[in-house]
């Protein structure tokens, strides 16, 4: 249980943090679709008996690089490219994953995480937050105006590659809690809720990370109480936060 909560805090924090950029980038569904790419990696891990998250990350990493390169060549949006790649990966993954493990892989089971998983989640989460923080301004500036970013010497393509890799890492550890089908939620909903009540960047990022932690910890605790899979409960907790924020905003016209 302690390990689960540690993973929950680490994942919620990093997913909320990096998700705040994804929502600004209009890449919210990229995280969702990208998570499906992890499936064949997990399957190979299960079949060959090594840690499935390593397989997941390897597949995510490779597909992120492929998508980044395709984006540079074709100039199509990330969303389009990820959409094209992910269904293929999902199809391969479903064929490869042993039937007995399919449900767990798709929906996650955090009760099975151990000390090593928890350590990995902490290390990855810290790395994601530190590196995302380093490129946050560059990405925001390139969103405000690509010309302003370029005139400041920012290499937008390289920054995007690093960003995609960080998204892959976050998705890979997020799968521990919610499985591959629901992990997209972790990067989208906390940021969406934070966006509604934030008039400046610093509040937005902090709230997004905080909502991510609250959603995943609440989901894991509820899962322990009711003895059901945590993934759906994490989603419900996050949606409850989102709904609460909408009501607060609506009733109070409230912006931080």
């Amino acid at each position, binding site marked *: 249980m302690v390990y689960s909560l540690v993973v929950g805090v680490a994942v919620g924090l990093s997913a909320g943090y990096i998700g705040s950029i994804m929502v*600004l980038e209009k890449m919210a569904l990229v995280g969702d679709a990208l998570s499906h790419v992890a499936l064949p990696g997990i399957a190979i891990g299960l079949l060959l008996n090594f840690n499935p998250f390593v397989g997941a990350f390897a597949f995510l990493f490779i597909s992120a690089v492929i998508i980044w390169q395709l984006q540079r060549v074709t100039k199509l949006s990330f969303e389009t490219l990820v959409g094209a790649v992910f269904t293929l990966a999902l199809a391969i993954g479903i064929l490869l994953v042993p039937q007995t493990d399919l449900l767990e892989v798709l929906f996650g089971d955090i009760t099975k995480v151990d000390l090593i998983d928890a350590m990995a989640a902490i290390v990855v989460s810290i790395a994601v937050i530190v590196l995302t923080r380093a490129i946050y*301004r560059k990405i*925001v*500036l390139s*969103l*405000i*105006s*690509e*010309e*302003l970013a*370029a*005139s400041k010497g920012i290499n937008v393509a390289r920054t995007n590659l690093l960003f995609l890799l960080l998204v892959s890492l976050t998705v890979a550890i997020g799968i521990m809690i919610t499985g591959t089908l629901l992990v997209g939620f972790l990067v989208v909903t906390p940021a969406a809720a934070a*966006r509604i009540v*934030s*008039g*400046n*960047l*610093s*509040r*937005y990022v902090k709230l997004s990370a905080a909502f991510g932690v609250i959603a995943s910890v609440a989901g894991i605790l509820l899962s322990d109480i009711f003895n059901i899979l945590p993934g759906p409960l994490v989603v419900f907790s996050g949606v409850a936060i989102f709904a609460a924020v909408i009501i607060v905003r609506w009733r109070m016209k409230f912006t931080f």
Partner: protein
Amino acid sequence: MEAPGDYILKVTKLSIEIANQKIVDNLSFAIKKGITLAIVGPNAAGKTTLFRALLNLIPYGGHIEWIGEVKIGYVPQTLSARDIPISVKEFLSFKNGPDIDQVLASVGLNPGAVLNKSLGTLSGGQLRRVLIAWAIADKPNVLLFDEPTTGVDSDSEEAIYGMLRRLTAKENITLILISHDLHIIREYSDYVLALNKCMVFFGESKEVANPAIQKLIYGEPVCRVYGEAHGGTIGL
């Protein structure tokens, strides 16, 4: 003839192609330090593309030579996204260490009134001024200003150009601006370069009042190639 050191920018035989289409063709001109050059031309004449080349953001043929220590500030025409939750203070603090209050005051904004506002909630005129503040925050000696086509009413537009003129005079900034408005060009610039893929006119800004020149600017392009252009007189 002035000494060559007085020039700040020399453009020679500049050609720019995007997706196999010639956007700018065989453009040569030169300008001196401290002047204001207006670039005018119909839509799709290559004005913003010329700026992108001057900023070295796109590949081009020919030469663009900035002379001496040049630091360029750039004011884009529009922002690609205004729905980013970022305050004016946060936006300007991206520019490592300017005195934000002072820089806002120098573009005629009351820091207390806009500092904590989000970029998306600013009026067109306020946003323009914030973007100028951004461009001048690290003390450039060249300012590229791409005029907005929408979002600013003509009164505040005049106020912005008046402010720009005082600012560039005070700091001896060379200003290159893109404008559609011949009145603005006549009032607020020294020289004008009319672009319609190629150069169709280069001369003193007061000449744009002349209907014959206006016909040159907005008519069918008749390209001119100047070997050298300086001050207001154009060497052939």
